[in-house]
């Protein structure tokens, strides 16, 4: 099978078009002058974007999403890095440990959402920000683990041993040697964690409480209740732009090839 064959290329283009089509539709629809979503859009206006600022629930939800995502990222980074380093130094139980910590990825989010909802209410935990952050952390940590572990396995132990022998205590070694050298993995993992948390719908919906709902969950609810209006399209378009911006930033900081190498390989 020749990759340069025009038929093959045509197939690839078609696949990409299929994947990207919904995004294009949403962005196009967001500039329509009509109140309801129409594609192709009639007219061009940016008023829906401007008006977004005035819609309080959107602003609140955006803020909430952001806070949740940031805290989730921090927790996932801390736990994920610790687990990745633990995996590096374990020989015997490694496969088991790996499966255990990466398992949240394998579970369907609905199942996880329902389970967590039940579990939290069983232990008297109320829905809302803390519950959402915890749930997000559970699904985001595996990505951090994979991202950091990919870099950690290439980190020679002799580097840390050198620091030890030169007089640095273990925490100092972590600070001076391990963490700086894990940076690409940490950044890649942080970005993955942030985006997964920020864009998450299912679990966020299960654990939302009045006034404490993430933006994607809110949009989904609104779409279900009142149908698709252009404001929804506008904010969706904004989310797309934001995600693209984050990825561009990260590729500039770390290099896209490194990022995908880090997350694609699983040990």
């Amino acid at each position: 099978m020749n990759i340069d064959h025009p038929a093959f290329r045509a197939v690839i283009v078609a696949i990409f078009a299929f994947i990207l089509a919904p995004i294009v539709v949403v962005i196009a629809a967001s500039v329509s002058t009509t109140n309801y979503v129409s594609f192709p859009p009639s007219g061009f206006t940016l008023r829906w974007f401007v008006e977004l600022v005035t819609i309080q629930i959107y602003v609140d939800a955006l803020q909430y999403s952001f806070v949740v995502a940031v805290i989730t990222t921090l927790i996932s980074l801390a736990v994920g890095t610790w687990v990745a380093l633990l995996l590096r130094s374990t020989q015997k139980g490694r496969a088991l440990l790996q499966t255990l910590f990466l398992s949240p990825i394998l579970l369907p989010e609905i199942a996880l959402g329902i389970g967590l909802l039940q579990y939290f209410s069983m232990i008297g935990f109320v829905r809302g920000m803390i519950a959402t952050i915890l749930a997000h952390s559970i699904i985001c940590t595996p990505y951090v683990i994979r991202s950091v572990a990919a870099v950690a396995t290439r980190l020679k132990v002799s580097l840390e041993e050198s620091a030890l022998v030169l007089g640095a205590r273990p925490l100092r070694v972590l600070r001076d040697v391990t963490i700086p050298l894990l940076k690409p993995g940490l950044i890649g993992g942080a970005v993955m964690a942030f985006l997964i948390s920020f864009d998450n719908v299912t679990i966020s919906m299960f654990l939302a409480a009045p006034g404490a709902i993430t933006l994607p969950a809110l949009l989904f609810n609104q779409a279900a209740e009142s149908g698709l209006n252009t404001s929804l399209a506008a904010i969706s378009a904004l989310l797309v732009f934001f995600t693209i911006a984050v990825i561009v930033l990260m590729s500039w900081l770390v290099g896209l090839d490194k990022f995908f190498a880090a997350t694609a390989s699983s040990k």
Partner: protein
Amino acid sequence: MLMSENQTQMLSAIPRPYLELRSVTKSYGGTLAVNDINLSVAEGECLSLLGPSGCGKTTLLRLIAGLAEADAGDIICGGKRIDGIKPYARGFGVVFQDYALFPHMTVAKNIGYGLKIRKYPTAQIQSDVANALAKVGLTGMEDRYPHQLSGGQQQRVALARAIVTEPTLLLLDEPLGALDKNLREDMQVELRAIQRRLGLTTILVTHDQEEAMTLSDRVAVMSRGRIEQIGTPRDVYQRPSNSFVAKFLGTSNLLNAKILAKETGNLILDVQGLQFHIATESEFAQQGDTVTVSIRPESVKVAAAGDPRGFRAYVVGYLFQGHRALAVFRTSDGAEIRAFISSTSQALSEGDEVSVQLTGEACVVLAETTSDMPEQKMR
């Protein structure tokens, strides 16, 4: 046993050893990596741990550095037991096989790392780093990063980093392994000079017997977790205590010898019909036994065919090696003997007959007895 006699001799020969290992043992999984090792290192001496991979030499080095804990035994340094002391508190310098330079730090920061940990003032760190760089011949390289340096330069930075903190003991793991031959020889000379100049007690791990002999005051030959022999390079090379040591250090011919007579301190041997004396302290051999003797190729004399002072052998190989030639002979009963001969003398052809001469001074009786022809391998 010959080996422990040797060791006890060595132990008591060092009046106040700087480092002592007593019955040190370490297993990984079910295997004994280090098996009841006893060793003494004098202050200022350079000792090599020499052996094939898997013999336990690196494990032993790591035990001394504190990067691993012994299962049994004691490690005593300067009179104090250091087994429980963490690697960051032992004050030793270590150069790893892969140099382990911090890739995200400049040469200056790498070398100054140990000093920074010890909270030396910046000005002093700067001057100490500059001094260390001068000692290894890399002045001016402060701001380079490790990936910008050649292998030899990296190795020297690693060395500078290890010695700048003025450690009491220097541990080197295959320090010259990654360098090419010419560079290695130069570095051997430099390393020896630095070690001598600083008077630093040094333990060096290597599988390269030439390196061990060039750099160290004493060599400890290891195999399978045990020390087979410790001695000066000359001792270990010329008087190997068993066939492992004989074969590991340089090429060796191992021949069967029949003991014709035994006197105190002396044996009369018969090798291929040639009879000669050999002085030896070995107690185990008896008249009538067959023992293995080892003789180095450079000590074998080759004379013209028919010369009565040697035994008959035929040429089976001749290799010109530049500064010398290696000739391989075989006797009528299949014993193979290798000899180094001058490359300026006439080349030999296959099938030529010669007379191979051995003398008692050049031979060593080895600790094991064999009944069959020992295999001989060129290193």
